[in-house]
């Protein structure tokens, strides 16, 4: 029978199937961090259970870690990180702690080590685990009880997800990035539109994306309510993986590629739902509200809540505008920001930093604006420094930080003050997400950088830019050095 990519990966991992019960699914890779794991390890300890497969488990410190040099000063954060260290030592789980060359945001670390591979099942106690679906893996976030379940059994009882195809046809216009694509998808289907689904992103515009850009798209699947996002593996995937520390080698590599090449939805596979977007219609996209579905093209204006047909949308929009301190009809380009954040598991990889650096190069961050650049991992930081990107950022007046989740969720000292407004390359603009009372506009790295320079929401086209040729900007956009 014809199957979709998600169904094929699912079927290859079924340990047990019984009428009326969820499937028991085998998990190939389990990623851990300090926030959602302590209660799971505690549960194991209470029940006297070991970690079944420490060799399929990896931990990193990311959510709480400071991005300025020195130890963790918040005592509660410190306890959480120390608890992870103690748990990993006790249960034999490999951990990349702060300061390690392989430390970083869990969803940046897995792919860069080559641990995330096509056809795998990947879970983590973090909803942005969907990032790993960019490799054609079935990857999804789980709660702490499920973390404990995977630690104890390396499996999860799960009901099959439905499948949703998101087809992005044609070629993206210059200056339109993966972030704009996924923000437009979420605005189209809504924050609940993907509920119960695994999204498979398809079409020429998706196939043309780099691996890192594909990760950006899959990362935000959860913001549409979807459990996971996937993209069929292809030569771009194989080229990215080959030579990475945990990628197969020799005969194993050949066997793996043969298997991976077959991992695509059959031509006659039927999805439970399909959504089409024309890439040519897309432009830089920003959010105006307090959920990631409340977004519009940068050229638009703040909407009037009265114009929403649905009562619940009307109320949500009115609440959002009150929280965001915005007036209907204000052009989005006129919105002034206080802070620009470049980083996170959505946009904290090297191509993101290159894109932002290319825009700020030769400019200064606008007066009164603070720009934070936080690499997604220690490796990304070192790579950026070897390319001189840190110098570009600091010369422009931005702050160059140590890797971690940072201001994406403000569990470390990087937060917005009440009423402060940010343009952020992260994934959530929820009330208080980046700090109590903070106001977040989600943007791409290109828009973030241009906004830092102008002080108002902007795209690189808004800059009076004599410093670089369009060709240089384009290569920075696609991430090709």
């Amino acid at each position: 029978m014809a199957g979709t990519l998600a169904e094929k990966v699912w079927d290859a991992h079924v340990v047990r199937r019984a009428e009326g019960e969820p499937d028991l699914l085998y998990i190939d890779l389990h990623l851990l961090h300090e926030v959602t794991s302590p209660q799971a390890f505690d549960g194991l300890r209470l029940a006297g259970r070991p970690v079944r497969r420490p060799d399929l488990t990896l931990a990193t410190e990311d959510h709480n870690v400071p991005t300025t040099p020195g130890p963790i000063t918040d005592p509660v954060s410190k306890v959480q990180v120390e608890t992870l260290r103690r748990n990993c030592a006790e249960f034999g789980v490999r951990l990349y702690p702060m300061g390690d060359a392989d430390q970083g945001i869990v969803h940046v670390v897995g792919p860069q080590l080559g641990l995330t591979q096509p056809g795998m099942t990947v879970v983590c106690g973090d909803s942005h685990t969907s990032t790993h679906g960019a490799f054609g893996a079935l990857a999804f976030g789980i709660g702490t009880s499920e973390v404990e379940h995977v630690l104890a059994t390396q499996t999860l009882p799960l009901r099959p997800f439905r499948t949703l195809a998101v087809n992005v046809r044609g070629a993206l216009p210059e200056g339109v990035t993966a972030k704009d694509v996924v923000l437009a998808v979420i605005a189209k289907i809504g924050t609940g539109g993907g509920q119960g689904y695994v999204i498979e992103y398809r079409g020429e515009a998706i196939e043309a994306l780099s691996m890192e850009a594909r990760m950006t798209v899959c990362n935000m699947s959860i913001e549409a309510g979807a459990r996971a996002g996937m993209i069929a593996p292809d030569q771009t995937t194989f080229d990215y993986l080959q030579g990475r520390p945990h990628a197969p080698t020799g005969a194993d590599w050949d066997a793996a590629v043969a298997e991976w090449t077959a991992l695509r939805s059959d031509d006659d596979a039927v999805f439970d739902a399909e959504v089409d977007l024309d890439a040519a219609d897309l432009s830089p996209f920003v959010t105006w509200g307090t959920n990631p579905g409340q977004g519009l093209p940068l050229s638009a204006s703040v909407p009037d809540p009265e114009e929403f047909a649905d009562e619940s949308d009307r109320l949500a929009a009115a609440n959002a505008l009150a929280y965001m301190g915005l007036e209907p009809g204000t052009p989005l380009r006129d919105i002034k920001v206080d802070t620009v954040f470049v980083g996170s598991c959505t946009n904290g990889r090297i191509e993101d930093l290159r894109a932002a650096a290319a825009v700020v190069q030769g400019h200064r961050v606008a007066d009164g604006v603070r720009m934070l650049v936080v690499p997604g991992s220690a490796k990304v930081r070192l790579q950026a420094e070897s390319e001189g990107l840190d110098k570009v950022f600091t010369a422009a007046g931005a702050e160059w930080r140590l890797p971690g989740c940072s201001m994406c969720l403000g569990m470390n000292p990087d937060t917005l003050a009440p009423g402060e407004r940010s343009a952020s390359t992260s994934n959530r603009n929820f009330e208080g997400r980046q700090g109590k009372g903070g106001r977040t506009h989600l943007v791409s790295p290109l828009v973030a950088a241009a906004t830092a320079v102008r002080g108002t929401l902007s795209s690189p086209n808004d800059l009076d830019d004599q410093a670089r040729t369009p060709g240089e900007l384009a290569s920075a956009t696609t991430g090709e050095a």
Partner: protein
Amino acid sequence: MEKFETHTGVGVPLRRSNVDTDQIIPAEYLKRVTRTGFEDGLFAAWRKDESFVLNNPVYAEGSVLVAGPDFGTGSSREHAVWALMNWGFRVVISSRFADIFRGNSGKQGLLTAIVAQDDVELIWKYLENNPGAQITVDLVARTVHAGEIVAPFEIDDYTRWRLLEGLDDIGLTLRHEDLVADFESHRPSHKPVTSPA
């Protein structure tokens, strides 16, 4: 896990859609390493507003939360479930739940009852006209009783069975450990391990 058959308690009308888990419990409250004590962070930002429903003393004993659609979206934090349960909630009613939140709730014994939005509106009106009124959630019959209103709710059969029996998932899976071992013996050799490369 405690068995769940029926629950009767004070209904709390929360007229909000898209209640994400950052609202249920902000990140700054996630730093504990236990499963208890999270009630201090429940709806922390909204509770600063005097008019917020949970600040009304008639809802102090609230145990059935009646919310708008798309409850529990966003972060996978199970702390959201712990915070609701630590506060005293046993049931959340909504027309649509985010998948991860619904899964987390089922593991902890917090009942997520999917009630049609039209019925949610009726229950809201009933609770607002009768502040502090009790409502009954019957998992055996899959119905919510609020005054004269009897609304059916949906929940998948397997979760319902586990809640009714009070069964622990890990224990259930470990009954099939031989199947897990058998599956492992057939995994391809090219699959990665996390030990140092």
